[in-house]
């Protein structure tokens, strides 16, 4: 079974802090994704990566950056957290193109910025 793990289920941070969300997949998938999920808005893509050290902006990249130094790990970074970044963050991976191949999701990190 594919497993996608996220470093924390719940996280509380203060405004202005630098925040790291970590995601690890164990199936040698090429593509990895970070989404943000808000009630009534569905999932919105923040960034994705199709190879090590490669990244592409999604629909809402402002205020976020990412890092993929190893194939299995994809990190989301909030350089200076703000209250409007309070949300559920979901990581996903897919073998190849995430628009054709199944995406496998982690359980999510609920981030609260106070």
């Amino acid at each position, binding site marked *: 079974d594919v497993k*996608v793990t996220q470093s924390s289920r719940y996280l509380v941070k203060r405004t202005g802090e630098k925040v790291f969300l970590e995601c690890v997949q164990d199936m040698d998938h090429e*593509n990895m*994704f970070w*989404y943000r999920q808000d009630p*009534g*808005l*569905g*999932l*919105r*893509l923040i960034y*994705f990566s*199709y190879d090590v050290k490669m990244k*592409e902006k*999604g629909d809402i990249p402002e205020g976020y950056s990412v890092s993929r130094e190893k194939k299995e790990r994809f990190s989301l970074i909030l350089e200076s957290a703000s209250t409007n970044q309070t949300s559920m963050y*979901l990581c*996903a991976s897919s073998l190849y*193109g*995430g*628009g*054709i191949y*199944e*995406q*496998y*999701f*982690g*359980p*999510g990190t609920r981030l609260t910025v106070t």
Partner: protein
Amino acid sequence: AQSVTQLDSQVPVFEEAPVELRCNYSSSVSVYLFWYVQYPNQGLQLLLKYLSGSTLVKGINGFEAEFNKSQTSFHLRKPSVHISDTAEYFCAVSGLHGGSEKLVFGKGTKLTVNP
């Protein structure tokens, strides 16, 4: 811009009743279509997908969906629901602008199955 519309944000039904969750997309080119489900406190998992071929697609847990190109719809159906089907369901589409790297998700439909 591409978009996916899930016409109902909440659908309450009684156990063993049939259900249809509606999804429409906007595109004039070929698309790939998906339904994902999110059970409480979990990530999403794939229910079914349409890439090509037969327009009636069967998925896990007794769900099926029909691709209708003329109506640009991909509605999800189940003839008899169980309490355990209570979850949020997301329709998603890709390939709208020729890209197969990412999905565009709808806003979700919360299905509540009551005893």
